[in-house]
């Protein structure tokens, strides 16, 4: 008889009041590893990612439908339940307190001011439930001169020294197009919550966790900051080159806007590179025999390497280098990774059952646990999809729930029978062999070709 499946957190109930990435992605991690995560959502102040994307929907689509279709929520909120609840009035606050009383964890990412205004502070909620692990992920923590400052991922990347490190030495920095610090805080936050739960397993006591996203982001460039603290030079952006490594860069390959990344990390990799067919001349060139020599003549070195890469596709170049032990990879496009056989073998992309879409595409986890892997059973919830279930879990009767809904305190899914379909469903099954729902639209080769062109689909072979 097979043992019942164990998930590391399957005994926990987690409440999330999350916006954007930090708290939602932290709770997504908790949910995929077993926790029952209830996302508490306000219609007045909805999670901004509920409506990111969805440009394909007709312009007059009501917000109550649009909020179920934002593609970003699909990867910040899979496996969660959603309750639509306004926690500010008496009736909503009372329902929320009943949820807190039986929860194990509460995760939020709000400024300390908002936490206090909404009565969500630790002291207040601990009185309801001393076993509660309470985490707020404010950008700047709970004190200091910036404590009430406003942030998004972009300006936090600037503040924390990350933006400065992305660009070319002779130009202004360009920054990164992602909310990096949010994701880092989400991961750090997951570690902190599990640590607090394990302590609670031993002591029975909950605790308050304060997570400062600003400091999480700085830890990511720890060695860079330490370099300055040790009296070294202040690092600035260096393109794709890195101090103390050569060759280290992104080189042109055959085709339009196709590139290959090559990084030689030690002498063994350099020797490997010199064995690659067509690159043997590097070994014969005494200027390049030592790291110091290669660093001093980086332009000449990059030119020699670039002449070799230009004659190959990025996959051929990376394959040949990897065969000799050199760290290299094609600079992939979004298109490349969607149809990548390696990621497919690891099941990194997932199609999950969805209320609004029947099933929908999302990302898996970058961490695979051999004995207790993450679960991938359902897509992000529609707004208020589980309002009735969650309220009845804490003792509300159907009549009471109807009254809360009628008063606009609780919200349920609008037009639950309306099924939507993402526009890419007509052709994506031909590219990604996943368990897609049947499309109502026939696969149109024209649409496929147009999108393939837009994604700059590679013409060369696909290395494995």
């Amino acid at each position, binding site marked *: 008889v097979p043992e019942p499946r164990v998930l590391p957190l399957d005994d926990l109930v987690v409440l999330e009041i999350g916006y954007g990435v930090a708290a939602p992605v932290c709770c997504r991690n908790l949910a995929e590893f077993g926790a029952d995560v209830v996302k508490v959502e306000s219609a007045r102040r909805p999670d901004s*990612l509920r409506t990111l994307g969805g440009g394909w929907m007709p312009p007059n689509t009501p917000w109550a439908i649009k909020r179920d279709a934002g593609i970003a929520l699909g990867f910040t909120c899979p496996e969660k339940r959603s309750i639509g609840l306004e926690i500010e009035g008496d009736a909503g606050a009372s329902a929320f307190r009943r949820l807190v009383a039986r929860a194990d964890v509460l995760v939020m990412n709000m400024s300390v001011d908002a936490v206090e205004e909404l009565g969500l502070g630790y002291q207040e909620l601990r009185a309801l439930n001393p076993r509660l692990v309470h985490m707020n992920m404010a950008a700047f923590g709970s004190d200091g001169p910036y404590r009430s400052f406003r*942030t998004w991922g972009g300006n936090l990347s600037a503040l924390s020294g990350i933006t400065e490190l992305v660009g070319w030495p002779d130009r202004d920095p360009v920054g990164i197009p992602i909310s990096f610090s949010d994701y880092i805080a989400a991961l750090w936050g997951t570690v902190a919550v599990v640590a607090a739960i394990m302590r609670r397993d031993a002591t029975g006591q909950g605790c308050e966790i304060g997570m*400062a996203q600003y400091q999480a982001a*700085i830890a990511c460039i720890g060695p860079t900051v330490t370099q300055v603290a*040790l009296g070294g030079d202040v690092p600035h952006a260096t393109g*794709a080159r890195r101090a103390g490594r050569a060759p280290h860069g992104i080189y042109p390959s055959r085709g339009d806007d196709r590139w290959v990344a090559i990084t030689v990390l030690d002498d063994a990799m350099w020797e490997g590179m010199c064995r690659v067919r067509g690159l043997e001349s590097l070994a014969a060139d005494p200027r390049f025999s030592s790291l110091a020599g290669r660093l001093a003549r980086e332009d000449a070195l990059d030119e020699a390497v670039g002449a070799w890469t230009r004659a190959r596709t990025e996959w051929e170049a990376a394959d040949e280098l990897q065969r000799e032990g050199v760290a290299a990879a*094609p600079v992939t496009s979004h298109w490349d990774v969607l149809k990548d056989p390696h990621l497919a073998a690891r099941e*990194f992309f997932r199609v999950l059952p969805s209320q609004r879409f029947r099933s929908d595409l999302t990302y898996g986890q970058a961490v695979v646990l051999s004995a207790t892997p993450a679960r991938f059973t359902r897509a992000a919830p529609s707004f208020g999809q589980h309002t009735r279930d969650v309220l009845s879990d804490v003792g509300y009767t159907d009549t009471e729930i109807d009254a809360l809904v009628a008063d606009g305190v609780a919200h349920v899914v609008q037009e639950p029978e309306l099924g939507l379909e993402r526009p890419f469903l007509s052709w994506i099954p031909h590219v990604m062999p996943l368990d897609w729902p049947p499309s109502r639209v026939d696969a149109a080769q024209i649409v496929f070709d147009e999108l393939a062109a837009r994604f700059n689909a590679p013409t060369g072979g696909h290395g494995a």
Partner: protein
Amino acid sequence: MTGMLDGLRVLDLAGELLTYAGRMFADLGADVILVEPRGGSPARRVPPVVPGRGGGVSAHFAFMAAGKRSIEVDCGQPRGRDVFDRLVGLSDVALVHDDVDRHRGEGIDFASLQALNDRLVVACVSAFGASGPRRHWHGSDLVAWAASSSALQMGDADRPPIAPGGNLADTAGALNAAMGTMLALRARRRTGRGQEVDVSQQEAVMSVAMEAGPIHSLEGAVQKRTGPRRTGAWGLFPVKDGMVEIVPALAPQWDALAAWMAEALGVEEIASETFRGSTLDRMPYDELIQAWTMDLCSRYTKQEFFLEAQRRHIPCGPVNNAADLLEDPQLDAVGAWVDVQHPDVGSVRLPRGPVRFDGEATTVGAVPGVGEHTDDVLRSVLGMGDDEIEALRTWGAVGSG
């Protein structure tokens, strides 16, 4: 309050690529033992290296090794290997960061380690993960950015793609390893057994770039390099002494910025109904708004602009460099820096972790010298006496400490 992970023993076997995961566990109170070969770990020479005596000081090592105990042991000889095996038997976690196969011959892989201790959690970060056709491929921070489809959209349109400096991709991998390790430890409470935690650095970067990633592209977003990101009043703008990033994402935040521009530049029309609404609504006036924003920014230093913007509740940040961070008043006020002992330079200032438990910040310990804690570990963990330790030293199985 004592550390959250008091009583947890972690062996850091990460070799040259010491990771932030071990540092996190040390900050949280675990006993993290850095196992170094005779003569010291190659991680002690990893760039960035600050010039100084004896070939310089690795800032990478100082940051990553803080708070760990160092044991210097020669695993190539049987008596050294026996010490190593006994440590494995008495540990909760082993951190390995390397190519999947590199250590297999030395028996530092999941199967061999678990044969010594079936309660052990083994976390391994590798370039492409422990399964799949590219599991043997080697990687690096830059390779992860390239393979994850992020680098293609970073940089300037007229130049090759680039990737962020620092070690963001390595950190993303390390944080996933730390998370997986914690989850495996919680599962062990029920299963009684450890397990393997497999992290692919390619996937780790994809999982910290989801909102600009491939799935978003399926709905029509286009991947291109655009130089400094700037749309209307949103993005990176030059100021007197550098740049600032402004993110007026919400309607009231735009209104506040428009009021500031009207006031400072004398352009009343910017606060008019024409420009209100969302960033998308303002797209037809993109160039005009950019010009006004440039004008406003050019009148301030980055710190002045940042503080004035925030006074007006406009999300904004100065583009700081590492030296700016060391002077930042917020970091100073929250005690974000800790001066710890360093074997070569006396003392070094390191950033603390971002988490407080019940108001108390995590700690940062000293940077260990090579084998500084060899005797200490042999005594406190393996229960050895002076004679036994002296014998191991005579055989060269452990370092001189």
